[in-house]
């Protein structure tokens, strides 16, 4: 069942078109990524879905309801973490969670969330005294305290250190495992690749592709590369040329470079093993979403 249906969503500010006919749907129980560089319209699109902004055109349905219709039943079922929001400096962690829990008819036990999100020893700390990572985890906990069916997380790991990001990713997977549909806005490729079942790639107010991260990478036709050094003389061309998925075998100094598509690397290593050919310095350069983005938009990520 589609939890979110967006059709032909358009949004303009003055003469500028921020969203130009965006359509996508999010299925129940998936982590759906909204990926794109800054200014691509990601946040505006999600804010239209959350009911914070009114679209100029198109339709949006969340759980079958119109988010613009000021409908309490919908807001009971969604949880939102917004970019650039703060809490009052002097509110304590437990007070914020307890307060937000009281807004919902059937909230979660916030004490559980405090444990899960590693805020137990910060329970009585004031918001202003929390570190960036702790604030971020509090915001995610606040987004989940209403026991939502859909959670919107906007740039959830911005400002977190690499280890905290990993931990957050694991927790988000657990959120999905509990049956919550997650919409994840991000400009981090690795995050989207790690977490998302499907991704909508935004570029200048349009969606250029919707697919799984692997599908996006494969769909661009990009080839992966594997490199290794042969430990005994052999002719890699005859040995590997006919392995399924392999499109080329070349030499680069004393290294062998094999290019191919799909899961060719597994087939190549299997063939090498079967012929008792030992290799060293094996490296596989997988294509990433960066390459996919470049292929889809003709532009590199940073520009």
């Amino acid at each position, binding site marked *: 069942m589609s939890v979110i249906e967006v059709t032909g969503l358009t949004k303009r500010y003055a003469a500028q078109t921020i969203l130009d006919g965006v359509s996508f749907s999010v299925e129940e129980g998936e982590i759906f990524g909204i990926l794109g560089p800054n200014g691509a319209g990601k946040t505006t699109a999600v804010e239209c879905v*959350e009911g914070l902004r009114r679209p100029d055109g198109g339709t949006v349905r969340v759980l079958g309801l119109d988010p613009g219709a000021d409908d309490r039943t919908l807001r009971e079922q*969604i949880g939102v973490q917004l970019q650039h*929001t*703060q809490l009052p400096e002097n*509110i304590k962690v437990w*007070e914020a969670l307890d*307060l937000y829990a*009281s*807004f919902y*008819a059937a909230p979660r036990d916030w004490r559980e969330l405090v444990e899960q999100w590693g805020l137990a020893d910060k329970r009585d700390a004031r918001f202003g005294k929390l570190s960036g990572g702790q604030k971020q985890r509090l915001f995610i906990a606040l987004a989940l305290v209403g026991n939502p069916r859909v959670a919107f997380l906007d740039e959830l790991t911005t400002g977190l250190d690499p280890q905290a990001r990993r931990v957050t990713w694991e927790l988000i997977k657990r959120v999905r495992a509990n049956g919550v549909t997650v919409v994840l806005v991000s400009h981090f490729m690795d995050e989207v690749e790690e977490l998302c079942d499907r991704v909508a790639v935004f570029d200048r107010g349009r969606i250029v592709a919707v697919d799984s991260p692997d599908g996006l990478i494969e769909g661009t036709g990009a080839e992966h590369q594997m490199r290794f050094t042969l430990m005994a003389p052999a002719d890699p061309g005859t040995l590997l040329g006919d392995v399924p998925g392999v499109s080329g075998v070349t030499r680069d100094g004393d290294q062998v470079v094999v290019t191919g598509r799909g899961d060719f690397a597994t087939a190549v290593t299997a063939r090498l093993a079967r012929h008792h050919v030992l290799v060293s310095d094996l490296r596989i350069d997988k294509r990433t979403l960066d390459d996919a983005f470049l292929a889809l938009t003709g532009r590199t990520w940073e520009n």
Partner: protein
Amino acid sequence: MTALAKLTTVELKLLAREPGSLFTVLIPLFILVIFGSSIEPGDTVLLPMALAIAVGLVGLYMLPTTLATYRERGILRRLSTTPLRPGNMLAVQLLLQLVLTVVTCGLLVAVGVNVLGARPPGAVWAVVVTIVLGTAAMFSIGLLIAALAANGRSANGIGVLLYFPMAFLAGLMQPVDQMPVLLARIGAYTPLGAFRQSLQDVWTGGAPSLPLLAVMTCYAVVLSVAAARFFRWE
């Protein structure tokens, strides 16, 4: 506890933790006590001044700074994604700032009358009407500042910037009878001036002057409408 009751409780705690609220109580109290030590028994001038200072501080400083900060920090926006709407936060804030006003005024009157020997107010209904209208006028200025200010800091700045000329014209810095006639007359048409004069009228036992009550009512209505018109949630 219902969401609204919980919101009120939490916001009350936050108000109590806010150093500004302490100053709002202490500044007029300090002025009252300092000047109160040299008043004659039955004084009718000092308490109206202290009350006007207190209500002015809440309306021009506490209310707009709090609301503009909440908008700046995205708190109102965040609330609008929950089943509770941000309008509730506005209502709760108005209520609590009103409570702060009432508590401060009560404390000032109690100290002024019982400790310093100032004259107790004449007709209680007249005092209540004057304070209600004066508070409405000052709060509506605060709401308009909150509506127009870009953020908490600029709301604070505008409040302070408005406070001093208004306090001067209202005769809070020197008695009106020592001010140039023209300024004193202009002062009576400012919200704080009308408020102080009206308080003093009822304190001396007279009825509140209708033109002064009308001045406060006009400010309250016009500025509140303007504030509602210009208010942005984000």
